[in-house]
């Protein structure tokens, strides 16, 4: 029962979240911040893309958890040492795995994840295309058999449009 083991795992982490989030601090605190505003801005940008590992989908920039604070300090440490944004990210991935990235990398593993939305859009476009082709052929047959006559509703609509045209 894989599902059960996952549920159990999730409950365990839920327990962790509850215990760890009890700390009173509020995400980024003043003493963590770098003096240089450009470096600090970069640190914030990187932090927003990194997951607080013990939280549910929160970035370390938003999280109150002590672990998030450690990661924030780590990011700043790397930046001060001269890492580029990518290098700092890479460093964290090498330490904590891809789980730390809030934007998963595009790999075979995540092909379906990235591709599903666009695939549905393309499939939908194709279905709509088929619908219109069918509509067109239905309309053509109707034309050929002379079955095009306006319904009462359509006639009313036509009258309305014509009258609003004459208003102007």
């Amino acid at each position, binding site marked *: 029962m894989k599902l059960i083991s996952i549920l159990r795992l999730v*409950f365990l982490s839920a327990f962790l979240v509850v215990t760890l989030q009890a700390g009173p601090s509020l995400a980024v605190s003043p003493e963590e911040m770098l003096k240089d505003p450009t470096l600090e801005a970069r640190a914030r940008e990187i932090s927003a*893309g990194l997951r607080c590992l013990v939280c549910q989908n929160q970035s370390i920039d938003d999280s109150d958890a002590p672990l998030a604070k450690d990661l924030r300090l780590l990011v700043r440490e790397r930046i001060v040492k001269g890492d580029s944004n990518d290098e700092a990210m890479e460093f964290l991935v090498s330490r904590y795995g891809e789980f730390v990235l809030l934007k998963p990398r595009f790999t075979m593993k995540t092909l379906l994840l990235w591709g599903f*939305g666009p695939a*549905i*859009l393309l499939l939908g476009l194709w279905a709509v295309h088929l619908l219109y082709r069918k509509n067109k052929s239905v309309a053509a047959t109707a034309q050929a058999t002379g079955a095009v006559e306006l319904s009462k509703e359509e006639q009313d609509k036509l009258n309305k449009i014509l009258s609003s045209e004459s208003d102007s």
Partner: protein
Amino acid sequence: MIIELGHYMLILAFALSLVQSVVPIWGAQIDDNRMMSVASPIAITQFLFVGLAFAALTHAYVTSDFSVQNVWENSHSTQPLLYKYTSVWGNHEGSMLLWVFILVIFGAMVGAFGRNLPPKLKANTLGVQGWITAAFLLFVLVTSNPFHRIADAPIEGRDLNPILQDVGLAIHPPLLYLGYVGFSISFAFSIAALLEGRIDAAWARWVRPWVLTAWGFLTLGISMGSYWAYYELGWGGYWFWDPVENASFMPWLCGTALLHSAIVMEKRGALKVWTILLSILTFSLSLLGTFLVRSGVLTSVHAFATDPGRGVFILILLVAFIGGGLSLFAWRASMLRQGGVFAPISREGSLVLNNLFLSAATAAVLVGTLYPLALEATTGAKISVGAPFFNLTFGPMMIPLLIAVPFGPLLAWKRGDLGAAMQRLWTALGIAILTVILVYGYVEGGPALAPLGIGIGVWLVIGSFAEIQLRSGFFKNSFSKAISRMFGMPKSVWGAALGHLGVGMTVIGIVVASSYQLEDISIMKVGDSRTIAGYTFTFEGMKESSEHNYSDVAGTFRVTEGDKLVTTLNPVKRVYNTRGMPTTETDIYTIWGVTQLYMSLGDKQDNGAMAVRIYYKPWVTFIWLGSLVMFFGACFSLADRRLRIGAPARKGRAKQAASTA
């Protein structure tokens, strides 16, 4: 005793729901009117029973009866009265009871107001509603009984989770559930149509008010939840793409598509099969949302209950309803006759486009929400899918849709004229472009694409009135004639305009607030001041107080603009006595109803100074005002008499029809 009666009422309601599940549908199969007519009284009686059960639990909470386990776990005798009431659904058992209660309210409403419904449709619809009620009542009774007693009653309760002790809990969950559960009605109607194997324009007219109601409440529920998070959590975020938020957002997206496809079905008899499928999918997503939140399979800020037994139970319900619904659809959908031919450029075509993008966006959110779970279950690999993913996949799909919105209402049915529609929109386009130029020219900072985002919002806001302008002949007819035409218009025209206007406002709010917000995090001593966006915040002092079940430490900050006093802000750090858990209570000042100054307190430093966060959030209230406007749009559409079969046309409409004839 009251508690035991409540429990008994719930069991009686379950017994009734079993009857409701079988008898009316059987009656519809064998054409027995007496069996079919059983549905309405049962639905109404059931509402009464569940209502009494709910009242019994509420009574226990208000009187702080800690011999009831649920009350003991989630409430405290010193809580303010409002929170004693809201504690009822601030926990798993109680919130499931609220879920079922709202379900039977909707059922009773169909029973009471559905007099004009064809008897078979009504019997089948209420029968299907009975299945859902029975399943969830069983869930409550078996796995989540809120009426469980404790042998030795404790003297004091364990208090409600402090994060939930807020007016937000009084507003957000009931509205959200009214939305979630409201979609059960359109689901029941769809299944009923499939059972009967027939469906017509009247069916769509019957379903549309329910979809509108559910959609309106869901809109409001999501947005109130978002505002709650915004002021409660203390760092000014309002949407996190958290799985629990996605769980409510997916039915909203799908429901929005349903709202639009039902129009095509009602007016033109087209897209029947698609509309049925959408209404099954929308309620399936509601159930999925309930599963995700209630089972604890995803844990987040919202998940305050976890228990695997429940998870498996809801999973079974989920598979039964979604699987059953979709199988029935696959089996019977071909029996429904399609009608209504239309060209790609037409009102129908624009609504198809709307559905296409909304469905794809729903798919993107769905895969982003479930993929990490599925991947871990199958390969064991752990990945995270967060805000950056959703911004990249969901965002680009919204842009073409938003740009297309103002065109839709201007196109004629069957075959429209895009050029003519564009001519009606020159004003909107001009103002939008002007806005983009002005923002580029005069506003500093912010991402390069922000002015374009604002432009799209302005395009939506102005463009949403184009149909009203067209129909009333404003700037063409005399002023008084235009005004009288405006009021004579079907209310659904106003509903659509308001709905689209609201979307535009929300877009503007999101773009402006996220692009141009200013943040200042600092350590302040008494007497210090910080200046942000021209406003000076001076730290005047700290004040301690204690009330109800918590104690407060409040800062006093004087806010001035130049020499002028703007306001005094009092952000609070609050500690709840029972759980010893701290929360931040932000203080917010709103300028001209749109821009907010937002303050929250952080840690107290060793030297007595305070960590302070100050935000300047331009136009941020537009995010939620927009959703309010969308809600009013739904109300306007609901007030449209055409949605009530048999209701006589109002005099004003008759006059307008005469004047245009």
